[in-house]
């Protein structure tokens, strides 16, 4: 089994949380559900939350249109519940507020409202802290404690609000804790799974999950058919809050490697591994990653990490949740800036190394795994629209983008570490806005730019610079696919730029 490299498909049919942008009637309470008494809702008034630890959070989100990078898509509303925590802040899922233009907090009992802004956001773990613009807004509210982590088998409460503001909680049984897919592809952390018969109510994009007065979890997804919840786990929330205290926020660390299991006895014999030892096989090490800096190499067998021995499946013994993937220990129980000792076996010899952890921001990848909260970069030259390839762009093809998006780009994204060992971006032609300068060229798109006017192109800035030096009055643009070369008349492109901008109502011809 290879980890970290493959995308994990969502286990649920439900797109996101219970009610995404468009509320629809919930199938909960159908005859099928009533026929099973054990699954009947166990709801009661959440009296412990009467003091007001839960707020309505209404967000108006507007993300960029990566197909037309100069404009934003139509705005949409997301409404969920946030948990008031210490420090005058409200915890929500990042997805509730990403690319938001406007955030409003609403007290359930009084209906009093205040605008808020995002104080800290982590898209990878899907958590965000909101701060009301008026600091007194949360003054008389009781913050929830986040210091207690539940055990598998605990009965938790999912908090919702009646339309009159009364908090209602539904009992949820914590059935398992395992590392799994959160919201962005390739980012997996400890995930709580619960069984819970949840009713549809407003403001359910995300919901706090509590145990007594302790905030335990935030709801990620709910599948009404199986009545199961996937939720952000307590250790992830604790890590996030701890790190959020120290600005600048660094993010969850990783080793920057992918590994395989070593269960196969024939493989163990070949690698001369004893049957009693565990260990995982290092498949790939990202250049400049914490693992690479610690000289961990492809083919090494990692035997222990941070003093925890790693079994052939890549699991360690977690005091709270038993056998868990070692990635939980690295990403969530450890922090950026920490040093983690690692024992490994290389060609049969033991070696101890120390890995200095840090977080790799999305901009440091050749193909950004996500572009959220910042606009896409683009440049338009003679009607040719150039962008930098990102997974956010590929996601414009919808949930099955890995099948629908241009295959060459999906391949580039998936194997970027192999294909592009050097630090760079992929600049590509996303479309042509037909005009007098492009007459005779077919409608081209999805082609990576290799050179412009003889200069290699590794990012949009290179393109902007190369544009300034046309060759004999022409821009020569070279692509990786046929037609491999396109010429533009540099003078005419400049003369026609204003008309082009007006014709297509482009607010700007570039954004870096």
């Amino acid at each position: 089994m290879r980890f970290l490299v493959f995308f994990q498909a969502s286990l649920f049919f439900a797109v996101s949380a219970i009610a995404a942008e468009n509320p629809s009637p919930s199938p909960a309470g159908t005859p099928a559900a009533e026929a099973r008494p054990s699954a009947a809702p166990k709801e009661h008034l959440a009296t412990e939350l009467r003091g007001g630890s839960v707020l309505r959070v209404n967000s108006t989100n507007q993300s960029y249109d990566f197909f037309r990078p100069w404009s934003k898509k139509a705005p949409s509303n997301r409404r969920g519940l946030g948990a008031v925590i210490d420090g005058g802040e409200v915890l929500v899922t990042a997805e509730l507020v990403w690319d938001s233009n406007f955030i409003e907090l609403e007290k359930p009992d009084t209906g009093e409202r205040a605008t808020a802004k995002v104080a800290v956001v982590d898209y990878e773990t899907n958590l965000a802290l909101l701060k009301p613009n008026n600091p007194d807004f949360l003054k008389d509210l009781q913050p929830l404690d986040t210091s207690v982590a539940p055990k598998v088998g605990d009965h938790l409460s999912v908090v919702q609000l009646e339309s009159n503001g009364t908090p209602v909680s539904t009992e949820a049984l914590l059935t398992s804790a395992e590392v799994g897919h959160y919201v962005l592809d390739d980012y997996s952390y400890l995930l709580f799974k619960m069984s819970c018969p949840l009713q549809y109510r407003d403001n359910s994009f995300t919901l706090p999950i509590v145990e007594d007065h302790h905030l335990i979890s935030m709801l990620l997804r709910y599948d009404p058919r199986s009545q199961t919840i996937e939720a952000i786990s307590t250790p992830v929330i604790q890590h996030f809050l701890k790190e959020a205290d120290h600005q600048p926020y660094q993010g969850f660390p990783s080793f920057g490697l992918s590994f395989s299991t070593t269960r196969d006895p024939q493989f163990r014999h070949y690698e001369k591994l004893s049957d009693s030892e565990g260990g995982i096989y290092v498949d790939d090490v990202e250049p400049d990653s914490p693992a690479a800096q610690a000289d961990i190499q492809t083919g090494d067998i990692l035997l222990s990490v941070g003093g925890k021995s790693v079994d052939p499946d890549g699991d360690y013994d977690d005091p709270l949740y038993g056998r868990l993937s070692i990635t939980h220990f690295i990403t969530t129980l450890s922090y950026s800036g920490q040093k983690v000792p690692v024992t490994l076996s290389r060609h049969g010899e033991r070696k101890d190394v120390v890995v200095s952890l840090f977080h790799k921001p999305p901009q440091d990848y050749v193909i950004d795994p996500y572009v959220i909260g910042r606009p896409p970069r683009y440049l338009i030259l003679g009607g040719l629209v150039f962008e930098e390839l990102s997974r956010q762009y590929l996601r414009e093809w919808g949930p099955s983008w890995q099948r629908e998006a241009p295959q060459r780009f999906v391949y580039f994204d998936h194997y970027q570490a192999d294909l592009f060992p050097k630090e760079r971006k992929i600049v590509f032609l996303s479309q042509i806005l037909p005009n007098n300068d492009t007459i005779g060229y077919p409608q081209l798109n999805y082609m990576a730019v290799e050179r412009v006017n003889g200069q290699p192109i590794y990012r949009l800035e290179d393109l902007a610079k190369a544009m300034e030096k046309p060759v004999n009055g022409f821009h020569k643009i070279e692509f990786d696919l046929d037609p491999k070369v396109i010429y533009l008349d540099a003078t005419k492109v400049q003369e026609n730029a204003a008309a082009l901008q007006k014709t297509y109502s482009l607010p700007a011809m570039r954004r870096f």
Partner: protein
Amino acid sequence: MIRSTFFGIACLVATSAVADTPKFDVHKSIVRITTTAQEPDYRVPWNPGSISTGIGAGFVIDGNRILTNAHVVSNGRFISVQRENDPRQYSGQVKFIAHDCDLAIVTVSDPNFFKTMQPLHLGPLPTIQSDVDVYGYPIGGERLSVTQGIVSRIDFESYSHSGADSHLAVQIDAAINPGNSGGPVLQNGKVVGIAFQGYSGDVAQNVGFMIPTPVIQRFLADIESGHYNRYVDLSIVPESLTNAAARQALGLPDDDTGVLVSSVESDACAAGKLEPGDVLLSIDGHRIISDQTVELDGENVDLAEVIERKLKGDKVKIDLLRNHQRLNVEIELEPNNSYLIQANIFDEYPRFVMFGGLVFQPVSKNLLEAFQIEDLRVRYFYNNFINDEIFKDHPQVILLSNILPDPVNAYLSEFRYQIVDEINGHKIRTLADVANAFDETSDFYTIKFVGASRPAVLQRTAVEEAKERIKDNYGVRLERNLGEETLR
């Protein structure tokens, strides 16, 4: 994508009279062909495959030969030929088969068969809007059926039998129905085409296609050598030069002449003769127009049509501009091999090597369709085989296509659909390399896959112990087929 299906044409409209068609007896030329075919299953490559029977048409041409479609007789194990008004069935043999243009020659060894038959003669390309008569055995009855249609369009069309070739085809306004593929399309008593494919379902109505005589004549000329050599191809990608800036940048006059060479396939016949960036000005004396057409016989046709009419070993003369210098090159034309990865395979048993329950097969269209493989890298290698020149390192892309579960391979399931790179340090370029590597004696067999550093490891003792068990369990008739013997 529109799916095309084969088989003849059914008449829906017969509006105009056919007074100018001379009387002749088509019954003495047409035959009904019944083929019992065995189609191999690429998922179980050691099995001989499932047996099916299909019916098509054919017609006699000079030299006691029957002309029909390749798909009528493909994978045939037994071919029976029947004449009109003759109760006997004759055993037929495929003499030549051209999968790239869907044509085949069948003969009948019984000397009496051709005695009363009248060969048909090939006519010209019909003109647009002219009437044609279509003969064949479409569904709806047993007897010969005649229909009439109008020539709607003459253009390059994808030939769905191979799935990877395009040639000239003539579209007629009659729907195509299974059963009279290979049947002649006649005009003024001469063959102007062979009905061969149409659209299935609700995609389009009254659209049928026939193979026109230039393609048939090329096929007949090709097999005169005693062997079918396939179409030849320059294997270059030309680009139109219709953009004003592009013409000026290349220093070309504003005369609508010339196309730009974008790519030259490095293992094909134009390699070393043409280069990316060349501007092709004329081909065999025909001026190349900037939209990739040439004027042939008074009509503008695709530049490729000049090559389409040539045979293996023929030469083509090209005038070109390279770095503003005028050059003449002469290229000896050869068939292209790389594109065959995307063409349907017929008339051979699937190639494979089985070792320790691991089945290795070269990537082909048949294989991907059989397993419905969606693996990103496999799809990428398949689709970009030519433009990324993957054939250089992997003339055959060898896939671990299947694992027959057994204790010996219990932990290897994650390697399924990976592309083999090395076995015991030997680079794997073809299936034969796989067989040779496993023939070597070694304690361990380590199989490295493209893009994966962890190898799959098989211990020789474990493989030997599992050998008979796997063969028994899964009914593996033979452990490898390297394709040394073909069915024809």
